[in-house]
């Protein structure tokens, strides 16, 4: 069973990264979804497959008697799912707002923050060159 998950994780990771390397930010976002699914499966597989019995203590008993699913990775995944949804919701809004401001969803055309020229200025002997550092 874990092998199936491992193959699936590999596939989802590859697909997710491939889409994240796309210049279109909407595809990037889809890649984000896929890669977070892969991450959740990784945690699940690391907790091993113990059958389909949920991690519930039967009514009236102090502890589990039969083999139940590993509860720890499930709790971690639950957290991870909700967090990645929060991040996703934020990135959807971010991409939406970026599109409204810049008129594009392609990351290579978003150059608004990069208008400053970082070319070094020659250090003048009278200390003009240093003034930028010292004065800032």
């Amino acid at each position, binding site marked *: 069973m874990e092998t199936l998950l491992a193959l699936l*994780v590999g596939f989802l990771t590859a697909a997710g990264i491939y889409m994240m390397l796309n210049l279109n930010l909407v595809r990037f976002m889809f890649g984000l979804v896929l890669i977070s699914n892969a991450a959740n499966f990784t945690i699940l597989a690391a907790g091993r497959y113990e059958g389909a019995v949920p991690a519930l203590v039967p009514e009236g008993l102090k502890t589990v008697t039969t083999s139940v699913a590993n509860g720890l990775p499930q709790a971690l995944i639950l957290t991870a799912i909700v967090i990645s949804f929060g991040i996703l919701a934020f990135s959807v809004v971010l991409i939406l707002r970026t599109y409204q401001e810049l008129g594009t969803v392609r990351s290579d055309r978003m150059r608004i923050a990069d208008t400053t020229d970082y070319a070094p200025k020659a250090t003048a002997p009278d200390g003009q060159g240093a003034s930028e550092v010292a004065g800032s």
Partner: protein
Amino acid sequence: MAQFAEPASAHDDTHAAATGKRLRKLVAVTALPAVLTLIFLSLTPSIAGGDILRWAMPWFPGLGVSLSLYVDGLGLLFALLISGIGVVVFSYASVYMEHYAFNTRFFIVLTLFMLSMLGVVLSDNIITLFVFWELTTITSYLLIGFTHDEAKSRYSALQALLVTGLGGLAMLAGLILLGLIGGSFELSDLRAGTVDIREHGLYGAILALVLIGCFTKSAQFPFHFWLPNAMAAPTPVSAYLHSATMVKAGIYLMARLHPTLGGTDGWVWALTLAGGITAVMSSVWSLYQRDLKQVLAWTTIMGLGTLTLMLGGGDKYAVMGAMTFLVVHCLYKATLFLAVGAIDHATHTRDRDELSGLRRAMPKVFALSVAAALSMAGLPPFIGFIGKEVMYEGALHAATLPALVAGFALAANAMMIGAAGIVAVAPFIGPERSWPAPPHDPPLAMWLGPAVLGTLGLLMGLLPFWLADPLIGPATSAVYGSPVSVHLALWHGINLPLLLSLATFALGYACWHFRAPIRAALERTAARVPLTAEQGYDHALAGVKAFAAWQTRVLQHGSLRGYLGTIFATIVILTGWSLVRGNVLPMQTNLLDATGFAWAAALLIVAGTATAIVANSRLTAICALGAVGVGTAMLFAVHGAVDVALTQVLIDILFVILLAIALLELPPLDRFRPRLSLANGFAAVVSLAIGALMTVILISITSLPLDTRITEYYEAMSVPAAHGRNIVNVILVDFRALDTLGEIAVIALAGLAAYALISLRQKTLTARRDDDGSVQ
């Protein structure tokens, strides 16, 4: 006070109020250094009697760092100089700084500097010492750049910070090595310790690192260039930090470590050469300067070089000479700086070509300048003469090449006489000039302190035992490592030091007499120097900046795909490499025990993912991702993860809702047409490689046995301890509730941030609409 003044007598009252304000300010700023001076003076008898005061408080005990004070002869001598000169400088500055902006800030920083400097000389713990040392660097930076609206000030401040700061870092490395090898971070333990650092293999490294720190701080060649530039600071600061106290910190540390590190060939040669070259070179250049403050700055470097030279000598006379000269130098140099400040204050110039004939206009300044200059020139009966005699005595007793040491000292001292004349005599003699505002003597607060220092120089020359017994003796003993009885006197009989003194006077008079031709010759030489140390600094700084700009352009190229590609490729290379060269991983597959339901879910995920990749329409992509979510939930269910599966389904629904809203506004997807380009190929290769890596790693992880102790603990304690049967939920809200708290904080923040992003836009839109309305 002024606001209660009657109109009729407004002028008198304002004047009285101004005087009262001055007096209050004077008392306020000089109170602390004065009290400290009295405290240190009261300690003198017991310290001179051989006592050592100690006080310690653990700071980071685990790291061997403690806040420990240690007052012995050396520390007390420095502490007295710092606080005593402090009184003079603070009172002087209370008038001098009147017309500067940010007066309060100035005195706060100056006070902080004084306390840090006292911390340096009184710390026993070397880490604490380093902290105070760096605090003096920082306060010095703030004070040099005090007139920060001038580019020159900013440049000089940064230069001093970089040079002394980098030196300080080297020193820290050396001090840590010293503490580790010596087995203690307390200087007193190191001196008394059983480990002889000098025998250790790393001694050379320690010595080099510590000396770099001392040489940069005390402006030894080739790190001397920052000190003349530091004269951009207001004159009281130059007098206090860059002449009398801070630049002596390096000297202090060398003196302090003399018993621990000194006496070896490396120590002797490093100090002798650096000190000698510094002393001779700087005294030559002092004759070249036009600005009187620059003359003083270069003579300060000469003084520091001489002190280094003496400490290198290692003989008890040399140490005695160093300690005597330390006091001498503080006394006359502070006086001269303050006198030049007074001239500048009155005439608004410090150019030696523009100044002459001030003797009638400024008689008090003239008198105290001459007193200081006589001490500086080393003429009897001033203390400077004794200092020079002891120094020659020490030079002749030097461990190696006494002739060389004496030669260095003779050359430097001779030129010092010329420089003393240039600073303290030349501006006052010669023809009187006409000034825009007639120059006048400064108010009492500005001349009393320097006058006291000048008088001390004379008194100590006449009564040298005042100085020798309580201060120089204990300090020399502390540096030398064993008790030394110090006897200072004006007349020692006719001996070699006296002859050297006479030679110095003759040469010095020549320097003074031929000052104009010497300067012309130096001007010609200066034009021919191919690379000064300062130009070297400028080139290095420009290089660092160019490198920073270059690597910023290369690394911060602004392409999201570039960043991600770099990160992912790094993962592939590093992980893949360690997989290849590591041990063979266990690989046990168990594909066959997967249930049919699991296979169906996996197929759904694969199909959905593939569709999402190649989708050309937004709707297709959303549906495909929805299908992936459903498949994911199914797989969770197969693993008995009911809560997770439920959450996944709900999130899936919300995800579709959210995207459906967002994509209405976003442009349609461009057609999926992967071309055979470098970027596409790179993306494909990297993503496939990471996918393969993940599969391999995960298979080998799941082939290893699992430690289930935590899970078993949760299963066992869920009902008894947390009264809950749903183990997953109990973990979330009880056992690991702190994680969950962090998580919901993230969720709440993400919600707030997204909301802020959108409402910001709505506000802008409203504002724009309002603007349009007003225009129409």
